């Protein structure tokens, strides 16, 4: 399964057979604007879905749907087995020590808010309140900023963050001053959705655990692209989202260490998360159910299970190698475009497959619009990471982001497209 073109001069080794892979993704056949082939380079916003994932959800609805957990009838048993089977698959995919550490949420944002709320209502030693500190970074997605701002406002805790170097990396030079004995939680992204930066986990986790702080890793841009081993990361919580990793919309994951999930209070209350309810008081089910109030995203879990099967079938290490090769190729080719400035690491080392850039003083909105006219889908704006734009003094960026089905030819199309943009606004 290596690309037929991989042997050609100038093309990087390690590529997947994207032609074969693309056959699994119906949408990639789409033709836009009278004959332009879709070149989908907006994968950091959301990935496309293979037929295998859609089939799994259809089969679920057409053969097995019922509400889960409480039924003695066949459909309820089958639905429960499929839903809980998806939990097993996800647990294996991230090498979780226990399946009960995998909580299904609606998206990564809920996963992140869930941790923030748990800690706000927790007892000691986890409780975030005035006198304690929360640490994030300047390159977080808004979904890993706003929950902490809300928590800080509502509890009186202080919100601190790591700044960025000019190269688009975390400035950890004052790590001991930022993560202190008052720090209760350090939450940071494994891979930045705007800069592409892969962050140094070990150094941050070591310091956080040294002072007794918990660590939450936002793996939304990592889980889809490389092997994710929660035990290896050494964090206390890991969050990610289904729709960026070939799964459906409407499902996210929070992994958390078992002892913590036992000790921490619930967030949403309702059906499924209880042990016994009376009007005066209730007790809660053990994790993960304690954190899954109401009818869960059953079909979406089934879809996510099929997605991790699909990704594992190809191999996460091979996907990572493909994207690394492609990113290297793209960075080299983009360097040929005059006035193009990469925002974020300029080499393929320690970075993911999302590349942000500015193009002279042509506004990203205009870049994106003219690329779209050629069938090339990129994202423009602040990518839910406005502090990064403020940091680098730019209003917005254009971002191209790749996935397992992205081919070098699509990178070429992007570069050609950018030349056209320059001529158009020249």
């Amino acid at each position: 399964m290596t690309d037929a073109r991989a042997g050609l001069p100038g093309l990087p080794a390690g590529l997947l057979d994207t032609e074969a892979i693309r056959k699994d993704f119906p949408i990639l056949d789409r033709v836009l604007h009278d004959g332009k082939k879709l070149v989908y380079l907006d994968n950091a916003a959301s990935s496309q879905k293979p037929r295998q994932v859609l089939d799994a959800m259809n089969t679920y609805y057409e053969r097995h749907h019922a509400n889960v957990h409480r039924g003695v009838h066949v459909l309820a048993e089958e639905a429960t087995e499929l839903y809980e089977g998806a939990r097993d698959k996800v647990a294996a995919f991230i090498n979780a020590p226990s399946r009960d550490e995998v909580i299904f949420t609606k998206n990564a944002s809920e996963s992140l808010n869930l941790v923030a709320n748990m800690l706000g209502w927790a007892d000691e030693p986890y409780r975030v309140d005035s006198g304690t500190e929360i640490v994030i970074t300047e390159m977080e997605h808004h979904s890993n900023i706003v929950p902490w701002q809300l928590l800080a406002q509502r509890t009186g805790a202080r919100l601190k963050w790591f700044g960025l170097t000019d190269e688009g990396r975390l400035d950890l030079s004052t790590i001991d001053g930022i993560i202190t004995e008052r720090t209760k939680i350090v939450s940071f992204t494994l891979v930045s959705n705007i800069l592409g930066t892969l962050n140094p986990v070990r150094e941050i986790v070591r310091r956080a655990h040294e002072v007794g702080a918990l660590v939450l890793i936002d793996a939304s841009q990592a889980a889809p692209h490389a092997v994710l081993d929660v035990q290896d990361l050494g964090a206390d919580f890991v969050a990610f989202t289904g729709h960026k990793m070939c799964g459906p919309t409407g499902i996210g994951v929070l992994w958390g260490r078992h002892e913590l999930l036992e000790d921490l209070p619930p967030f949403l209350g309702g059906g499924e998360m209880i042990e016994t309810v009376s009007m005066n008081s209730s007790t809660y089910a053990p994790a993960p159910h304690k954190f899954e109030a109401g009818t869960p995203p059953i079909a979406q879990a089934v879809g996510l299970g099929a997605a991790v099967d699909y990704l594992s079938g190809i191999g996460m290490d091979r996907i990572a190698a493909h994207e690394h090769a492609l990113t290297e190729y793209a960075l080299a080719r983009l360097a040929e475009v005059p006035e193009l400035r990469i925002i974020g690491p300029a080499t393929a080392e320690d970075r993911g497959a999302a590349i942000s850039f500015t193009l002279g003083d042509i506004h990203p909105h205009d870049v994106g619009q003219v690329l779209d006219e050629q069938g090339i889908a990129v994202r423009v704006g602040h990518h839910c990471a406005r502090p990064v734009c403020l940091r680098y003094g730019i209003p917005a960026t254009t971002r191209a982001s790749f996935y397992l089905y992205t081919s070098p030819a699509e990178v070429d199309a992007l570069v050609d497209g950018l030349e056209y943009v320059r001529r158009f606004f020249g």
Partner: protein
Amino acid sequence: MRLESMYQDVILDHYKNPHGRGLRPGDAEVHHVNPTCGDEITLRVRLDGSTVADVSYEGQGCSISQASASVLNELLVGKELAEARRIQETFLELMQSKGRLEPDDAMEDLLEDAVAFAGVSKYPARVKCALLSWMAWKEATAQAQVHKEAA
């Protein structure tokens, strides 16, 4: 037919004529619920040295959970603790087998009437019913031992 594999006559007999039902004095008491259906059991264990002197219980639940408690009483009362534990563990293994474990003679000798629950293991929603009293017994016994030691 599937139904008869779950509702063996032995089970229905225990359901209709439960052994040792009612609460009597004990060294420890626990209350367990099955959150998926609301079945509840209060169970007491009395130890006499390393012998299970009595297991008394009260609760509400389906035929499976009621019969299972009755079988437990019949099977464990009078046994040495080590033997009782071995029975409990074997029963647990059988119930978690998803119908894939065919009890052999040794298992039948050990579990006696409790082998009748083999068919229940195919029904994930009912496995917890069958296990309710056994998990309660395990916890109550652990507590009773701690109390004894502390005394």
